[in-house]
C-alpha cells in the first residue's frame, strides 16, 4: 500500500557499515568477558543465524519487481545475524542484509536491524537502535521466506518496492505483553524515531530528503491460543528540496505557481499516516489471515498550488495448510487501490489471486513455487514499464500473470 519515494541506500549504507564496524568491535569487547564468566555447557555465547535465497520471476506481460516479462533472476536475498544475551533481561544484536530485486538493492549490504533490548518485566521492555516496524501482521517478517508459505506477501499491504522505507526505523521502541486472565493477553509495541534515506541514486535535482519523524504502534489481542486481533497505526513525514530545471521554471511561471521568494529551490513536505486492521488464526496445521489497511498522504510544496491529497487502500485474505511436514500449499486474494480518489482506469487497482506451494526439503532448505493471476496495473513501477507516470500505467496490459520460483537455505 502506498507510494513512498526512496531509492537504494548506498550512501546511508556506507555510513551504516562504518557505524556498524565500530558497533561490531564494541560488541566483541562486550561479549568476551561475558563468555569468560559464564561459559555455559549448553549455551552458545552468541547466537548466529542466516539465510540465502534465490528466486526467479516471469510475467506474461508488464514488468513486475524487475524485468520480469523476459524472465528475471534478479531476486536474491542474503541475511546474517548475531544476537547475544547478557543475563535474562539484556540482549544486543544486529543483522546484515543484502538483496537484489530488479532495480532494488544491487547487493549493497546494510544493517537491516541492530538494537539494544532491555526487558524490565514481561509487560515492559525498551529496545533502542534500528528496529523493524511492527505494522500489520507480517511487515517485520517480509524478508523471512522461511517463516511463511507464499513467496510474495500480499503486495497490497506489504509491497517489496517500499521495503527501504516501510521496514525499519532508527529510534526507540517500547513493548510488552499483558496477561488478561480468561481474556487472553494483550501485546503492545510503540515506537518513534526517524528513517535514514539515501538519495545518492536519486535525481540530481533532489538536494535533500529526510524523514523528520516516524511514530506508531501496534496492539495485538490474543483471546485464545492462535487467534489474534490487531490494529497498527503509523505517522511520518517526508521532507525534500529540489532544484527545478529551466523548463520546469518556465512551466511554473506560465502557470503562475512560482512563489515570489523563489531562490532556485522548491521545498516539499509529505505527511502521511497509515493504519491496518488484522486478524490471524493459527489452528492445527492451518493458518488464516485477513487484513485491511489504508494510507493517506498530503503533498505540500512552496509552489502556489493547492495541497494534493492521495489515499490508498489494500486488503487481502490468505490461507495455508501444512499437509505434510514437507509440503504446505497456500492461497490468497489481495486487492490494492492506489490513489483511488484521483485515478481512474486500470492503474487505480490491482487484483491478485495467488496460489503457492512450499516444499521443505530438510529443516534448513526449502523450495517454493507460486502463480498469480493479476488484474489491473496499480502498484507497478512506471519507470520499469517505460511509461512517464502512474497515468501511463493505464496503457499496460490489464490482465497478466506472474510465476515465481524461489529456494532458501537457512540456519
Amino acid at each position: 500500500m502506498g507510494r513512498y519515494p526512496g531509492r537504494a541506500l548506498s550512501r546511508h549504507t556506507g555510513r551504516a557499515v562504518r557505524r556498524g564496524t565500530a558497533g561490531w568491535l564494541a560488541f566483541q569487547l562486550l561479549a568476551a568477558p561475558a563468555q569468560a564468566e559464564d561459559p555455559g555447557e549448553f549455551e552458545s555465547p552468541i547466537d548466529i543465524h542466516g539465510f540465502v535465497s534465490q528466486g526467479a520471476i516471469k510475467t506474461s506481460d508488464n514488468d513486475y519487481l524487475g524485468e520480469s516479462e523476459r524472465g528475471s533472476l534478479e531476486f536474491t536475498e542474503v541475511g546474517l545475524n548475531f544476537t547475544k544475551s547478557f543475563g535474562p533481561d539484556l540482549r544486543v544484536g544486529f543483522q546484515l542484509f543484502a538483496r537484489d530485486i530488479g532495480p532494488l538493492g544491487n547487493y549493497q549490504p546494510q544493517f537491516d536491524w541492530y538494537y539494544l533490548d532491555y526487558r524490565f518485566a514481561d509487560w515492559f521492555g525498551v529496545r533502542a537502535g534500528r528496529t523493524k516496524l511492527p505494522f500489520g501482521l507480517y511487515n517485520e517478517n517480509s524478508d523471512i521466506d522461511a517463516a511463511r508459505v507464499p513467496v510474495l506477501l500480499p503486495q497490497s499491504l506489504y509491497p517489496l518496492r517500499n521495503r527501504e522505507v516501510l521496514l525499519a526505523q532508527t529510534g526507540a521502541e517500547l513493548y510488552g505483553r499483558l496477561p488478561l486472565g480468561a481474556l487472553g493477553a494483550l501485546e503492545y509495541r510503540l515506537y518513534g524515531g526517524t528513517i535514514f534515506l539515501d538519495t545518492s541514486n536519486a535525481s540530481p535535482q533532489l538536494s535533500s530528503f529526510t524523514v523528520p519523524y516516524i511514530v506508531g504502534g501496534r496492539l495485538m489481542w490474543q483471546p485464545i491460543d492462535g487467534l489474534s486481533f490487531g490494529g497498527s497505526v503509523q505517522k511520518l513525514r517526508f521532507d525534500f528540496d529540489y532544484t527545478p530545471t529551466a523548463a520546469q521554471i518556465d512551466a511554473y511561471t506560465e502557470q503562475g505557481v512560482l512563489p515570489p521568494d523563489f531562490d532556485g529551490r522548491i521545498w516539499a513536505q509529505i505527511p502521511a499516516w497509515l493504519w491496518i486492521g488484522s486478524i490471524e488464526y493459527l489452528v492445527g496445521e492451518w493458518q488464516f489471515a485477513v487484513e485491511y489497511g489504508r494510507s493517506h498522504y498530503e503533498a505540500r510544496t512552496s509552489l502556489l498550488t493547492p495541497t494534493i491529497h492521495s489515499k490508498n487502500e489494500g486488503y487481502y485474505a490468505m490461507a495455508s495448510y501444512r499437509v505434510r511436514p514437507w509440503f504446505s500449499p497456500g492461497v490468497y486474494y489481495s486487492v490494492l487501490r492506489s490513489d483511488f480518489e484521483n485515478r481512474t482506469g486500470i492503474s487505480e487497482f490491482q487484483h491478485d489471486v495467488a496460489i503457492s506451494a512450499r516444499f521443505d526439503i530438510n529443516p534448513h532448505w526449502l523450495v517454493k513455487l507460486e502463480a498469480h493471476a493479476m488484474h489491473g496495473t496499480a502498484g507497478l513501477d512506471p519507470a520499469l514499464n517505460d511509461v512517464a507516470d502512474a497515468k501511463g500505467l493505464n496503457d499496460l496490459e490489464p490482465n497478466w500473470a506472474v510465476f515465481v520460483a524461489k529456494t532458501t537455505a537457512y540456519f
Partner: protein
Amino acid sequence: MPSSADARSRRSRRVLLAELGVTALGMLVCSRVSGETPADFLVVVHPDHPSESAARGFLADAFLKRTTRWPGGEAIKPVDLRADSRVRKAFSARVLNRSVAAVRSYWQQRIFSGRGVPPPELDSDEAVVRYVISHPGAVGYVSGGAKLERARVLGVT
C-alpha cells in the same frame, strides 16, 4: 459323526480366536492407558524449584519466551529437545498447542526480525536432565522412562 481330527481343528481355531481376542483386548487396554497417562513426556525442573505444577498456558508462554520469569521472580530457562524428537512432538502438541513445524516457523519470524532466539536444543533426555539440574530456573521435558537423577517433575494443569 465328526472325526477326532475335526475336533482338534475346531479346538485349535477356538484357541487361535481366543488368543487374538486377548491380544486385541490387550492392545486396546494399552492404548487407553498410554492415552490417559502423560507417559509421552514429563516436564522437569531444577531440584530447588518451589512449585509442584504449572498451568499449560504458562508453560507454553515460557517455551515461546513470551513469559520470562517464574511467579517467584526467577528467570525461566527453557530447553528443547531436537526438532525430530518424538517426545518434543508430543510436548509441542499438548503444551504449546502447535506442531513442531509451526513452532519452528514462529522462531524463524523472531530470529530474523531481531525479536529473540529459541531455547537451546539438546540431543537426549540425559542432556536435558543435566541442563535442568545444573541451571536454577531451567525447565525441560523428557520421555516418560527417562532417568531423572535429581530433576523434579512438574505437573501440568
